[in-house]
């Protein structure tokens, strides 16, 4: 996983509520066998007309946001489908941090698995950040967002923070508990033998 420490960049404001993962990356791009290359399809139906031409009004087609590395979002961002293609598409576009009043649970987890930092801030703070001209700086060690003389602090679970800072391989970390897993499996075979598939 990519580590995350601090990030300074342009934040694109997409403040509508309940942006679902179908909107972030629609179905026709889910047949991919790899994680990369989805950035050009990010927000496909908002971003392109049916003929595939850019829609000039859409946020990410505006010159100042083409290189955005942060996204300011509305409440319940990433709801719906569990598709990890959504954070893959954001990451491939260049987004490393999403700031929103709230996130949907599965999407929130999927962000951490890909080195994307989801920052929860009150809606008023998000609205305030959306008015900032120029870059924002997100400082994970200090748990702050700074812009234009403004400094906001955010909360993050210590385990999540540590994993992001380190770019931790979660599977490797779990493998350190192998003895516990083996002990659990041995115990369960005795305590709940019916879990053996089709057992009698």
């Amino acid at each position, binding site marked *: 996983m990519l580590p995350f420490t601090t990030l300074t960049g342009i934040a694109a404001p997409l403040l*509508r*509520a*309940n942006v*679902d993962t*179908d*909107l972030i990356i*629609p*179905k*026709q791009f*889910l*047949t*991919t*066998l*790899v*994680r990369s290359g989805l950035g050009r399809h990010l927000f496909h*139906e908002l971003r392109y007309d*049916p003929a595939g031409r850019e829609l000039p009004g859409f946020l990410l087609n505006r010159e100042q946001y083409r290189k955005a590395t942060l996204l300011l979002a509305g*409440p*319940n961002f990433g*709801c*719906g*489908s*569990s*598709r*990890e293609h959504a*954070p893959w598409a954001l990451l491939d576009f260049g987004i490393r941090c999403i700031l929103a009043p*709230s996130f*949907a*649970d*599965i999407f929130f*987890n*999927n962000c951490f*698995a*890909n080195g994307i930092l989801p920052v929860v801030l009150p809606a008023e703070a998000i609205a305030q950040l959306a008015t900032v001209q120029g870059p924002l700086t997100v400082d994970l060690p200090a748990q702050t967002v700074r812009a234009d003389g403004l400094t906001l602090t955010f909360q993050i*679970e*210590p*385990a999540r923070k*540590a994993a992001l800072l380190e770019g931790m391989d*979660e*599977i490797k*970390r*779990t*493998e350190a*508990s192998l003895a*516990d*897993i083996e002990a*659990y*499996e041995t115990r*369960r075979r005795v305590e*709940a*033998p*019916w*879990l*053996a*598939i*089709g*057992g*009698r």
Partner: protein
Amino acid sequence: MSPRTLYGKIWDEHLVATRADGTSLIYIDRHLVHEVTSPQAFEGLVLAGRALRQPGNILSVADHNVPTMDREKGIADETCRLQVEALEANVKTHGVPYIPLLDDRQGIVHVVGPEQGFTLPGTTVVCGDSHTSTHGAFGALAFGIGTSEVEHVMATQTLPQRPSKNLRVRFEGALPPGTGAKDLALRLIGQIGTAGGTGCVIEYTGPAVRALSMEGRMTLCNMSIEGGARAGLIAPDDTTFAYVEGRPLAPKEALWDAAVAHWRTLASDPVAAFDQEVVVDLRDLAPQVTWGTSPQWVTDITGRVPDPAQARNAEERDAILRALDYMGLEPGTPMEAIDIQAVFIGSCTNGRIEDLREAAGVARGRKVAQGVRALVVPGSGLVKRQAEAEGLDRIFLEAGFEWRQPGCSMCLGMNEDRLEAGVRCASTSNRNFEGRQGRGSRTHLVNPAMAAAAAVAGHFTDVRRLEIH
């Protein structure tokens, strides 16, 4: 031991280790795998030189992008075909149980798992699919995960987790005639909103839930995610055990008896504390129809398209305006006056035998209205076979519905079953998001009988007024 909820009991039974940072490792008993969210997980394992810890605890099947017509001829779309072939190659390499595309047992993972007895009460069930919440109908802790987590489960048979909040939903009263599990789900989501269950595991309680069949319970739990909750639970009871008993992968004989004795202990203790409680009064429940682009935007069939001017604030007004614009609807329009051009009966929400029986009851002796294209897609090959044994396929075909092969189909349109822009669909699926059934498509979520009623009327209509055969 202090009183515990059903969720608390399953959590405790699956706790492998509590780590220094406060996260817990939870053991995963059952893992469902399909073609769309697994290739990168298999690839990741291979690249890291890791083996699958318990390949036998997986059940895999292709469902999302399989054709629902002329399947015997293969998959025409190349990217879809390659993805199904990748799954077939991966399961072969890694020794994972797989149900082939032309097997009668093939179908939507969330229909197949329960049907095969793979899903059991008191287990933990995951799948790279948000509608894994379906399996909570059995009193299993079942939730959708991303592909990185799919890889994590394959490698370790565990997931790092944080405890969710316990949310009890109490449905008060019985289901009124003409309504079903889908209406329970939609009414609840309308009440709490699409983020109302975020961070929670829902336990559904009340006499209406107890009275539901397993099919109905699966419909209700399926849509937990549409209310923001990763998982929904219903305590197992005799209805559950009667459904599971004798299924191919369920325990048999002495193990069955031992299992049932344990499963009876899983219900929430009477004084267990819930973090939140929601009460839904069913007295005035009518068939539900969504009007917007989020499942929370729902009303009674006797209702009207809302007026944005009556929104609580500017943000809500703008959101409703955008939804009405996308849906091509005028404020104040009676729901029954909205014409439809397409009907989809199927999906992991409403693609089971009971759903097809309800729809067929309306379709029998009637004709699909002119200009309406209506698809019936059974949730699995076994559902299809059962429906055909009951003559339901004849009823649908004679009425002018298309009778298809099983899969996810038009719920998300990964295969060729997609809607054209501007086409309005009465759908028994779970999501009415923008573009969900095809770019520019307009989805209204309804129960199966309501979908069939819309098909024959050509517009939404109150199924309670129709004679059911």
